[in-house]
């Protein structure tokens, strides 16, 4: 539990520094875009800070698989196809995509990612490098 609290605190610091939000705004349920106001360039900033804070490498597209969301193979009429959704779930095992999966409109995707997803992502990275 203590390790989890430490991990959450480090992520919160990264988000406070990158997004200029208050500490108490960074709750596990908060969405990065909707609640914390993250824009696309902020994700690069956040990735840099997480890499430094946890001494990990985050390859492009791992935390935010933009390639799937912009793929003509996986996106039709603004929605992810079942294959696209399956691919997204495979690439983002740390994220809870059940709600998004009910109506996978791509433009709503950015509002899915929560602080808790990010915590799970970092946990999974640390588990594989340990």
């Amino acid at each position, binding site marked *: 539990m203590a390790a989890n609290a430490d991990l959450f605190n480090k992520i919160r610091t990264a988000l406070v520094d990158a997004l200029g939000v208050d500490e108490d705004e960074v709750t596990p349920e908060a969405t990065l875009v909707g609640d914390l106001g993250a824009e696309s*360039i902020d994700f690069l900033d956040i990735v*840099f800070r997480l890499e430094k804070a946890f001494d990990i490498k985050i390859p*492009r597209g791992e935390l935010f698989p933009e390639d799937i969301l912009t793929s003509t193979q996986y996106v039709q009429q603004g929605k992810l196809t079942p294959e696209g959704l399956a691919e997204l779930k495979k690439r983002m095992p740390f994220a809870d995509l059940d709600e998004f999966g009910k109506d996978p409109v791509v433009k709503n995707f950015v509002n899915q990612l929560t602080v808790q997803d990010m915590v799970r992502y970092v946990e999974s990275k640390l588990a594989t490098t340990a």
Partner: protein
Amino acid sequence: MRWIWIDKFVEFESGRRARAVKNLSLAEEHLHDHFPGAPMMPNSLIIEGLAQTGGLLVGERYAFEKKVILAKIPKATFHFPAIPGDTLTYTAVIEDINDDGGRVTCTSHVGDRLQAEVELVFAHLADDGRPRKLFEPKNFVFTLKLLGVFDVGGGPDGKPIPEPPGLARLRANVGANDTGL
């Protein structure tokens, strides 16, 4: 007027850090408007100078092959106004850099006094094939020569920074000579 907000580089360590100076003179026209009777260097232009210092550092890391733009200013703190007669020393340090961009921490000093602390995030523009006119090659070549990047530059091993192939190509394309004039 050229959009150059540093006077020259005094240190340039490839991929790591750079220092540049900016002398403030009452002859600079903008200081008469900012503010009448109380001239001070606009903080936005100090950020621009820091961004030019850090941006060239980031650009050099990939041999100027990538298009570097200032994408974000996560933090900017100014401790006192910079006024005519001051020499600002800008220091930029690369904290993180990868194919997508770089994060740079910067300071501005007047003598030993810390005048400003600024964080900057640069992005590498994706080359999507569309023509972009953000950069004027001729000015860019001249600017690098005039600012003395290659006079003071060195790698971590202390060896001089060679002019990157991309720069030589750029110079050939615009017909500039070695003096940069």
